[in-house]
């Protein structure tokens, strides 16, 4: 089974999916590593499945993490929308949507980080989670969630 190589993961912002307990999770890698258990074929099938899911939830019915909204307070509404829209779309499809942790400079501009941080944080949550979690790989023994469920991380193994 083909795995994402280190070089590929470094260059790409990969959407990947799994289930933790009964929670369906979407994560955007933003050049971070993703667990070895997520193979290319499996993930591309999942990306395709999710892309073709209908959005049947109003935007008002999803929740944006308060920490994120506080951080984005200094940027314009349109910039906030630009950052959030893909995570909102995933939450509207029923996924808890996470982004690899990003930092901001003194002017509020996001900073791209290649420092191999593999901590992700919750950006948007669904009110009604996706019910077809049987389609997703369980990573209960791979990722570690914080007690409040707002961040997760995992140990990195190199994929050559």
């Amino acid at each position, binding site marked *: 089974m083909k795995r994402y190589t280190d070089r590929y993961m470094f260059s790409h912002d990969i959407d990947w999916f799994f289930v933790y307990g009964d929670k369906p999770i979407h994560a955007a890698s*933003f050049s971070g590593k993703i667990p070895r258990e997520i193979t290319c074929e499996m993930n*591309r099938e999942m990306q395709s499945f999710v892309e073709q899911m209908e959005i049947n939830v109003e935007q008002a019915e999803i929740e944006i993490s308060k920490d994120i909204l506080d951080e984005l307070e200094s940027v314009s509404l349109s910039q906030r929308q630009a950052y959030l829209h893909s995570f909102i779309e995933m939450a509207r499809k029923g996924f808890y949507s996470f982004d690899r942790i990003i930092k901001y400079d003194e002017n509020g501009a996001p900073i791209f980080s290649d420092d191999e941080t593999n901590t992700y944080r919750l950006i948007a949550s669904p009110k009604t989670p996706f019910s077809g979690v049987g389609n997703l790989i369980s990573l209960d023994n791979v990722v570690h969630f914080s007690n409040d469920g707002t961040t997760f991380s995992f140990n990195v193994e190199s994929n050559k």
Partner: protein
Amino acid sequence: MDEDALKKIENDAIEYCHKMVAEAKAMRSDSDRHRYQWDLYSVIVSCGDGRNIRRGHNQKRKEKDFEQPLRDRLKKLGNIGDRPRDADGKVRTDACGNVCHLIGSCAEPNAANKLLKINPKFSLKKIEFSKAYRPRCVYKDDYTPIAYCQNCIDTFETIKNKTNNP
């Protein structure tokens, strides 16, 4: 470089982000094509010399990949492919305390290198860059540029000037 040329470089980067997102969506919507690569790049930048425009994305690079003038400039930061280090050997951090990027891995030198391949005599000091964008975060007419990193500020005069006079 005149305003029009600068605007063209900026628009090129934004249009490319839109195109990449649209292509990824189209590929994902077509189950028969799911074996192909369709992930977005993390960061993209366009650059130009007034006549030509080239794009780059972040990727790991080796010394031999770069044209001579850019290679020499990057090597002033340290070994290409490694992180820059202070005199005491510690990995350099920027003003915000973030670890500096791997030398040569940013979208900016990768875009500039493509430009130098077609116009080898063009001065590094004159290459103009678009802002850096995360394609995922370019939506309709809204976008949040990513901050230039310290390596790129130290490598490219025009980026340094923009950072000093945003």
